[in-house]
């Protein structure tokens, strides 16, 4: 048990009363509420002796003194949860007061350790408990989730927008160039989605095996991996099987598209995508451990996806597609970049030298602003130079989101859960820019058809 610190006395002072407990002569715990005064200089707590033999605080055994606080919020639950308990010995009452000398302390205050972090730090206890329970019952007892939710969590399905944006944009650019095949477009979207989900799952496997996810006690909705292995929701074998199935499906579709289009360029783009995705976390390359994670994500979910989708339709590369892929690449890399901020402590512990691990906070936030603005500058330059249709300037409407994220990062750099809202805005930024670029292309194609 941790020793008692001066701060524990100060904390105990903050509770309006305490509950004093001990084990009575019949072998049952017994508790009584009473008032208290701490004396940090003497390292003691003065307790008002409760009346009656049934609750006379004993002097010959361990006594527990507990302060507890909760702030009920009708309709919402409660917050400001905290408690502190001290173990020690008590004296006979003098003038109606007992002197309690604590020897050890334990507690939790959600203002210091947020509930989600407290839960995360307790995962080993859950695993231990369930392992012992399984041994006791003679059958395996594991945590569960409904299959649909488990698939969503395991594959991190909501992140598929990072695939839809470049793939649909590549298809739209090809359509503007007069090349469009519904069937191939559909197959491309499915193949790219399978590749993305397969890469997510394989990254999870390597991050769990490397200890990066376990070292991270501040996972959020957007960061820290799926944690399905850490939570024991699936086995390693199941996860590997899923990754193989998803990547196998993606590869089969990729080969079909190469066959259907006869494009060797597409083959090389596909190989580059899979290699980048796996090598992102897989040994021995582990791009993300070398500070190359952001660049590999930019390449994979920018040019690789967009040019791949374009080549399926058009059969060759084009400068317009290359230019259009740049802002998408930058913004998707910035999703990862911001999501790495709350992960940086766990990443550092696991040797993942991401940019937020390597760089001071002020530099990280400045790089975000510069890179995000650069993505809009590329759109403007592309439209002004005539490489992109002028209607792609619609994407500038999403620019104010950059400042929201930037301010959020600056303000909540060290508060993972407060930062979560801005991580969400950052994901939205990528999605909105993608949708607005698509809208720009839709208008351009419509005008082309009309004119």
């Amino acid at each position, binding site marked *: 048990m941790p020793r008692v610190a001066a701060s524990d006395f100060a904390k105990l002072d903050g509770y309006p*009363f305490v*509950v004093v*407990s*001990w*084990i009575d002569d019949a*072998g*049952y*715990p*017994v*508790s*009584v*509420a*009473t008032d208290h005064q701490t004396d940090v200089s003497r390292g003691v707590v003065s307790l*008002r002796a*409760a*009346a*009656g*033999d*049934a*609750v006379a605080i004993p002097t010959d055994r*361990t*006594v*527990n003194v*507990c302060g*507890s*606080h*909760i*702030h*009920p919020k009708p*309709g*919402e*639950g*409660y917050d400001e*949860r905290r*408690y502190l*308990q001290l*173990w020690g010995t008590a004296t006979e009452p003098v003038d109606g007061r007992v002197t309690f000398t604590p020897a050890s302390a334990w507690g939790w205050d959600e203002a210091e350790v947020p509930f*989600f972090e407290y*839960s995360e730090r*307790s*995962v080993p*206890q*859950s695993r231990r*408990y*369930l392992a*012992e*329970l399984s041994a006791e*019952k003679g059958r395996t*007892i594991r*945590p*569960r*989730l409904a299959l649909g*939710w488990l698939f*969503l*969590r395991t594959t991190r399905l909501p992140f598929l927008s990072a695939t839809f944006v470049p793939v649909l944009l590549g298809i739209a650019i090809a359509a503007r160039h007069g090349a469009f095949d519904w069937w191939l477009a559909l197959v491309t979207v499915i193949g790219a989605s399978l590749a993305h989900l397969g890469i997510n799952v394989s990254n999870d496997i390597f991050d769990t095996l490397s200890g990066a996810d376990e070292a991270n006690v501040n996972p959020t*909705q957007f960061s820290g991996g799926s944690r399905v292995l850490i*939570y024991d*929701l699936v086995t390693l074998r199941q996860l590997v099987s899923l990754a193989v199935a998803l990547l196998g499906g993606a590869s089969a579709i990729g080969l079909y598209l190469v066959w259907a289009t006869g494009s060797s360029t597409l083959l090389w783009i596909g190989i580059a995508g899979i290699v980048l995705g796996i090598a992102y976390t897989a040994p021995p390359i582990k791009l993300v451990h070398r500070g190359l994670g952001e660049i590999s994500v930019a390449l994979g979910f920018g040019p690789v996806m967009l040019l791949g989708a374009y080549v399926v339709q058009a059969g060759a590369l084009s400068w317009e597609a290359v230019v259009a892929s740049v802002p998408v690449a930058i913004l998707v890399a910035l999703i990862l970049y911001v999501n790495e901020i709350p992960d940086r402590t766990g990443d550092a512990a696991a040797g993942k030298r991401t940019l937020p691990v390597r760089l001071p906070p002020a530099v990280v936030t400045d790089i975000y602003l510069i890179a995000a603005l650069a993505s809009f500058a590329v759109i403007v330059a592309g439209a002004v130079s005539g490489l992109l249709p002028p209607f792609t300037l619609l994407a500038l409407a999403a620019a104010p989101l950059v400042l929201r994220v930037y301010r959020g990062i600056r303000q909540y750099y060290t508060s993972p859960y407060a930062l979560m809202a801005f991580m969400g805005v950052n994901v939205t930024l990528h999605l909105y820019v993608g949708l607005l670029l698509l809208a720009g292309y839709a208008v351009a194609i419509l005008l082309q058809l009309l004119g």
Partner: protein
Amino acid sequence: MGWLSEPVERLLEVALVGELTVIGRRGQPVTHPLIPLYDGERIYLHSSTLFSKKLEHIKRNPRVALSLSDPVALKGLTDRATIQGTARVIEDDPHEQWVGLVLDLWRRKEPVIDAFLKARVALPLFFERAVIEITPERCLLWPDGDTSRPPIVTTPPAEVAA
């Protein structure tokens, strides 16, 4: 039917938090704030497997005490009580079993729990839970919460205790 007095039952029905004291590995008292539920006979508490040390303690020694003492957590009621009893951990299926046993009681006290339960995917281990069922054996009641006066001590009538 239960034998606890009406003021104690009222405390149990409104309490958002009670202090459950169990007997630790070295025989020491260990206290955990928890939400108590009451079905008119037995007291139920429940614990995520994340915070399951208390369950291990109870399985080693099932004697427990529950203190109801904080007017803020008791919706302004000022009486205080401590209920001693024997606890049983119900844990055959931490995923489902607690839902059938205590969700209705929990929902009645904390309707917001349904919203949290819908987001089970976000915190799956929090909703892997065991139920602690306490059979009350002795009760100490302090009317108006005044512990400077001896408590009213009650035990179950002979036919209940038997």
